[in-house]
């Protein structure tokens, strides 16, 4: 894996000699930015797994705040980062039963449709307004990460009529307790409405919406925590697909920004998954919350035109 990261870095250096490495207006040669992006995303990928947060959620506030790219391109790349991560994890989660296709599909179809609206809205709004809203959403994520409770196995006494009609239930094998756990969900209609809103946010800001999906599935609808996390990834793969097309059609996806980000994040996530038992999850999580807090405030101030 370290070799792959070195290979990625080497490719940028080879590229620098293939193209004229003339300094840009701000003094730095062009290849510095994609190389820095690759390395930053590699680190984000490593910390995202133990911190229990999607890499896409970190990407937009951090890259939007500290790199010179316009927010339009950052959001386009952010959606692809979240999409590629969800697509990579999806098959394994579905095969293991941690992701439920049956639960994901109705929610994802609604959220996909609303993400198209969110993406259009985000691309139509002035950049400073998007920055302000992004800052508010990122700060809300920080609060959510602090206060949101989790319920390993929520109690659902009786599924609602829609949940029963659609048979939104299943069984998964819990490796920790070594038990097959049956689950069912309730509050399906409020859940569908919440996912409509989640789709708008995902499309508008280009951030993965796992931070919202998991509490909605777990605390609102009553799916077990592990099923919520697994199903969230399947939902994201569909929601981000729709929103990504809006950005592609608008011309807001630049391979020079998107590809180093996707590759760096995916390589980093593989290392993060291997280091899951070595790194202290709580310490990493606090560190990530700190960085998000800083990035959220920076986005807010940038949008308000305060500071550099």
């Amino acid at each position, binding site marked *: 894996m370290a070799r792959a990261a070195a290979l990625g870095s080497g*490719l*940028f250096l*080879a*590229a620098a000699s*293939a*193209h*004229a*490495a*003339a300094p*840009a207006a701000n003094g730095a*040669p*062009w*290849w510095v*930015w994609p190389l820095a992006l690759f390395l930053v995303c590699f680190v984000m990928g490593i910390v995202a797994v133990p911190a229990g947060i999607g890499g896409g959620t970190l990407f937009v506030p951090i890259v939007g705040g500290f790199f*010179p*790219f*316009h927010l*339009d391109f950052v959001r386009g790349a952010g959606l*692809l980062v979240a*999409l*590629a991560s969800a*697509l990579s994890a*999806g*098959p*394994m989660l*579905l*095969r293991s*039963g941690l992701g*439920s296709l*049956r639960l994901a*599909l109705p929610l*994802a*179809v609604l959220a*996909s*449709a609303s993400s*198209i609206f969110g993406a*259009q809205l985000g*691309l139509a709004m002035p950049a400073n307004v998007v920055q302000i809203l992004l800052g508010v959403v990122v700060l809300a994520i920080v609060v959510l990460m602090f206060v949101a409770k989790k319920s390993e196995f929520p109690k659902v006494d009786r599924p609602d009529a829609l949940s029963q*009609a*659609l048979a939104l239930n299943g069984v998964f*094998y819990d490796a920790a307790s070594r038990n097959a756990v049956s689950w069912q969900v309730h509050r399906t209609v409020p859940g569908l409405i919440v996912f409509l809103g989640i789709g708008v946010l995902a499309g508008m800001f280009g951030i993965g919406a796992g931070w919202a999906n998991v509490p909605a599935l777990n605390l609102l609808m009553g799916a077990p925590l592990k099923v919520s996390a697994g199903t969230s990834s399947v939902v994201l*793969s*569909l929601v*981000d*697909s*729709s929103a*990504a*097309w*809006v950005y*592609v*059609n*608008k*011309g*807001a996806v630049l*391979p*020079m920004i*998107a*590809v180093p980000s*996707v590759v760096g994040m*995916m390589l980093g996530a593989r290392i993060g998954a291997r280091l899951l038992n070595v790194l202290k999850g709580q310490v990493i999580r606090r560190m990530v919350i700190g960085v998000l807090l800083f990035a959220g405030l920076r986005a807010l101030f940038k949008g308000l035109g305060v500071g550099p």
Partner: protein
Amino acid sequence: MKPSVGEQPPEQQRYARVLEWAARAGLLVLVLSFAAYLTGLMEAHVPPQKLPELWVHPVDRFIELTGSPRGWGWIRLIHLGDIAGLLGIAILAGGSVLCLLSLVPLYAARRDRAFAAISLAGALVILLAASGWVSGGH
């Protein structure tokens, strides 16, 4: 007892299989085309050294300055390295359509009309987004 892979519903297994291949194909095309762009093997629509003065602008201004295509206009410039990357992105963002359509016969055979319709609706939503009709790229 730990359930085996075979115990997942058949539609879930099929979806996982199609998704896996779509993700692999998309990432492969994305990385190979990008390597060809970076190393100069493929000609570029916008040379990399010009990007730092362009990527600071909103997308509309960027397109005005570079003449980059909107919507599906990129297809006719697919021979250019930076544009070819969009093919990988299209495979990644379009793979779910194949996954969803592959479910329809399974649900239909089981007379699960609700989920056949939901799968079809999901595919149509993504196709609608891809068409550019609702996203301004048409």
